[in-house]
């Protein structure tokens, strides 16, 4: 249909780069993106089999979609799984105790055979601390988002399906929480709740639920207006049944996709609190407090290979995990056809 093309300024693949895709974690900035109302969808394929029963449609579409995942997705998944394994198995890996002090490593703490990534100024093995540090990040990242998805998801479904007063109230409540910059809200709640592993998980869940609430609510509203839902309603199906169908076919992919990005955001959030010295207190190793220590030791003039390793090792660990999980989220989103503008 060359005739209908607009020979504009752009190159050939005009449509391929379109769409708003900044729902990537890493910043408050992108937390921010999650908090947005839907911008008008542009160039979104809507040729979905609307008339098909939801379940058939879902499986058929899913089968086709899984094949579209690139090798990059599987590499990213591999990285994420690897870190999960590390976090689970840190205790049985052949590494030092992360709080153990090697006094021979205090003086010359550059990377060596005994300490592959060197030691921190306190003589603790950097490799061990990086690997153990994954525990705090991963536990808080996954647990807080799990809580957030359960709370935000249920509320979002209810608000999106029933609308009315419940939607209004929840909308105002989530709005209030979103009126704080996320890190500031986190800091305020830390003052109130405390800084144990469980406390920080709770803090991040409190910060995260309004975002997940919005995502799920928007997806539910969109889904509730689909023909097959309207038809089911007209036929007198019970709300619980409709919610189950809607939940299965339309909302779960959205929740999973944004949940993944949420995990990355939660880990960044925990990292920021840790970096500020306001997350799980030392001596527990976290990526955030290690980066803070590394930052301090590189800024003093007497920086060495050890302080470089102390800064770079946890940074690379965190970056690799966040990048991988963001990439997974991004690929899943495009493959599951979660509307980029859905929130």
């Amino acid at each position, binding site marked *: *249909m*060359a*005739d*209908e093309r607009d*020979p504009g300024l752009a*190159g*050939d693949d005009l449509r391929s780069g379109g769409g708003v895709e900044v729902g990537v974690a890493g910043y408050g900035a992108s937390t921010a993106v999650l908090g947005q109302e839907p911008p008008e969808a542009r160039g979104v394929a809507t040729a979905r089999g609307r008339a098909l029963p939801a379940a058939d449609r879902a499986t058929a579409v899913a089968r086709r979609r899984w094949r579209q995942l690139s090798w990059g997705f599987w590499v990213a998944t591999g990285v994420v799984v690897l870190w999960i394994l590390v976090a689970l198995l840190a205790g049985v890996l052949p590494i030092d105790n992360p709080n153990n002090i090697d006094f021979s490593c205090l003086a010359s703490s550059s990377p060596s055979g005994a300490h592959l990534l060197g030691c921190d100024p306190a003589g603790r093995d950097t490799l061990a601390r990086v690997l153990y540090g994954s525990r705090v990040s991963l536990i808080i990242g996954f647990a807080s988002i799990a809580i957030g998805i359960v709370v935000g998801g249920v509320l979002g479904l209810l608000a999106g399906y029933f609308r009315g007063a419940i939607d209004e109230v929840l909308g105002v409540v989530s709005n209030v929480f979103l009126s704080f910059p996320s890190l500031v809200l986190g800091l305020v709640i830390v003052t109130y709740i405390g800084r144990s592993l469980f406390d920080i998980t709770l803090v991040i869940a409190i910060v995260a639920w309004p975002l997940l609430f919005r995502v799920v609510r928007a997806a539910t509203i969109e889904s509730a207006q689909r023909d097959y839902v309207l038809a089911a309603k007209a036929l007198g199906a019970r709300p619980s049944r409709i919610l189950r169908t809607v939940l299965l076919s339309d909302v779960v992919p959205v929740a999973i996709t944004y949940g993944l990005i949420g995990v990355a955001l939660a880990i960044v959030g925990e990292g920021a609190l840790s970096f500020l010295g306001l997350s799980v207190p030392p001596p527990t190793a976290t990526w955030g407090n290690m980066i803070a220590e590394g930052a301090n030791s590189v800024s003093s003039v007497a920086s060495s290979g050890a302080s470089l390793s102390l800064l770079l090792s946890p940074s690379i660990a965190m970056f690799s995990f966040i990048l991988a999980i963001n990439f997974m989220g991004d690929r899943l989103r495009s493959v599951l056809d979660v509307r980029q503008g859905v929130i």
Partner: protein
Amino acid sequence: MGARRRVREVRPTDGPLLEVEDLRTYFETRRGLVKAVDGVSFELIAGRTLAIVGESGSGKTVLSRSVMGLLPQRNVTREGRVRFAGLDLVGAPEHELRELWGDQIAMVFQDPVTSLNPVVRIGRQITESLRHHVGMSRSEARAAATALLRSVGIAEPEQRLRWYPHQFSGGMCQRIVIASAIACGPQLLLADEPTTGLDVTVAAQILDLLQRLQHERQMSMILVSHDLGLVAGRSDDIIVMYAGKVVEKAPTATLLSDTRMPYTEALLRSAPRLTDGSHRRLPTIPGAPPDPSDYPAGCRFASRCAYAQPRCAEEEPPLRPGAVPEHTYACWYPVGTPHGAEALELNRAGGAVG
């Protein structure tokens, strides 16, 4: 219009204002090479109106843009010859073309609402080419724009200059687009389906406006349309395009009275007439145009043609002259000839056409 600072002076020549010779425009796409314009030739005498007619997908829009050179910068092949006022436009670098665009050659696009930048006041959209090409000062350009708006029939032009496009109706928008296109007094105006999306009355008004402006300013005009009926009374010559090629070309009156190409005939039949009853169902042409990246051998219309014979699918018909010298067409079994009648009869008997 004040002191013009022309970047390039275009001298009037004796010959036609525009000569197009074997123009080809191909797009490289993932699905293959799309031959949107596949060897088109025509001439346009200064002051005349040429209509290019065809269905969507026939290549007429690309042709109009290709004539101008207004094509994407990558993955496009444009071959042949386009001479405008003695200048060769094919192969000319874009910065040279830009000096002509908007100044000597202007274009009016299909959809007036999307052709205007929604976030820019219409005043600036009209004056920017004046300021750019003619070098007018802000106030000069403003005065000129006011006059232009008045000439395209917009009341209270001074106030309206400060309006945004969304504050106007579709018809008004098209008037504004036209005003901005003719701002610099181009010699050639390309109007690409200027009435799409407008209702019939407004469409007629727009076309009348274009005709009036053309006469007043002695422009040449190329009017691209899918509606043969609409352009019939407003053009001097008509080119009928199908699948990237010219299939019939004639002065308007000749084409209407002495149609040769079955495709033209089909287009004519599908055009509404004022004499028709309001509920007459228009016949449509069965089938769809061929895939532009994979044209069939022979006549490209053959698969949809009521006259088609085996030869049509094998041998591509050349353009051949009709009764008057300005009339050419490409068909083995032309309408209104014994050959054609015979072929049609044969197909009717075979039941190929209902």
